[in-house]
């Protein structure tokens, strides 16, 4: 029989991460092999690679993990997930860390959270993404210095009919908004 690691060895933060990520219970099996960091296209930009983050989670270093840039460098390419010899859904764990750091207010100033909020704000208003509105709002409020660099690209996109200046609203936006409201009330997923 294969014994499961006992709960008493789990740090409080590990339990929190497991609770927040689908399949997250696999993190107790991390071998510290480093396949994840070695596979990651953003590994070099991270404060800590995923392997280190898993060790820090086990050591209950909640604050250091949540203040790191690691999960915000994740591009959701799933190389780590498909290569992990222990089948840890690493990308899902990165999403869970993003959610916890936003919920705690730690990540509120970053570009990643700002893009996510601006994007979903458009979806909640129109039901569809609105690229022009997203780009103009996000750059205006969060990256004003980069706006002039984006201008020529925006014009190229516009001249080829690839940039719509008017948002498209779905018919039953009320229905979508009710679903979102209810899902927010229900909170966690487990």
């Amino acid at each position, binding site marked *: 029989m294969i014994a499961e690691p006992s709960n008493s060895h789990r740090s409080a933060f590990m339990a929190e991460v497991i609770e927040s990520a*689908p399949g997250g219970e696999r993190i107790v099996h991390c071998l510290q092999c480093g396949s994840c960091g070695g596979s990651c*296209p*953003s590994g070099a*930009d991270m404060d800590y690679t995923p392997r280190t983050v898993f060790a820090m989670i086990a050591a209950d270093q909640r604050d250091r993990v949540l203040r790191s840039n690691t999960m*915000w*460098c994740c*591009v*959701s390419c*799933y*190389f780590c*997930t*498909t290569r992990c010899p222990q089948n840890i*859904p690493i*990308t899902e764990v990165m*999403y869970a860390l*993003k*959610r916890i750091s*936003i919920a705690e207010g730690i990540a509120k100033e970053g*570009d*990643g*959270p700002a*893009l*996510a*909020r601006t*994007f*979903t704000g*458009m*979806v909640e208003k129109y*039901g*569809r*993404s609105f*690229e*022009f509105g997203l*780009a103009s709002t*996000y750059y205006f409020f969060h990256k004003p210095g*980069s706006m002039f*660099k984006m201008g*020529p*690209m925006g014009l*190229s*996109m516009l001249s*080829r*009919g*690839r*940039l*719509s200046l008017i948002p*498209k609203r*779905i*018919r*039953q936006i009320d229905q*979508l908004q*009710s*679903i*979102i409201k*209810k*899902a*927010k009330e*229900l909170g966690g*997923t*487990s």
Partner: protein
Amino acid sequence: MKYAYYPGCSLESGSAAYDVSVRSVMESLGFQLDEVDDWNCCGATEYFTQHELVALSVIARNLALVDKQYEQLVAPCAACFLNLKKTDKLMAEDRSLRDHVNEALGAGGLSYKPGTVRVRHLLEVLYSDVGETALRQRTKRSLAGLRIAPYYGCQVVRPLNGLDNTEYPMKMDELFTWLGAEVVDYPVKAHCCGGHMTQISESQAFELIRRLLQSAQDYKADVIVCICPMCQLNLDAYQSRVNSEFNQNFRLPVLFLTQLVGIALGLDWKKLGIGKEIVSAEPILREKLEQASAATAG
């Protein structure tokens, strides 16, 4: 054969060439695509970053809207495909999650039973349902002479193993050999384009884009072919920024899978959205394909 069709937001504007070419190609092959009525955005990666149950409920609304007469739902966008398929899978595996998603959907008078709809990526449909025999038979203008670098990106081949090899996918490679093209075997065909990092951290994203363009150029590709709107946007629209950043002179046209399939089927280039790309593909397409026709005629 008919399918429910989920174009996704990118195909309405930034990647309109993908949408118009998907519709033209499938119609000419006799496969019916019917757009899901009043579909909403899948949320890409941005809801999962904030709230998982909202992410899944927003996606599940689309699955619930698929009319009962359709057993399969086709998505050409990598992120939409992954989100739709992942939601169906998570709802099937986790009863409590399923109940929560359905409670949220219930607030809008909807519900979804996992497994009701089979989510397919367009590449699978072309490769398996249309298939080699039909594609070879229907080829009116061989792509011989054109060196194609198939670019798979991340979210179609990972993490939902089973569609193709996660490290070294081959379906697009094979498909283009059926159409007569010379397929470039380059090592980064399933590496990452940077995704939304072009908006968050340019230095991180531009290096990933540079690696892809460099590899495709080293292997002498005439054109890169994508199956994801984000990949196409990053490689095409950011190409000049990457050139300035790294003092390079890449001029690699980046097209969608169905644009080149459509050319091989002899469809009107205007109906395939050729010309909407920022780095123009027409000169190299005309040069290579006309050389090949002349050689065949000669």
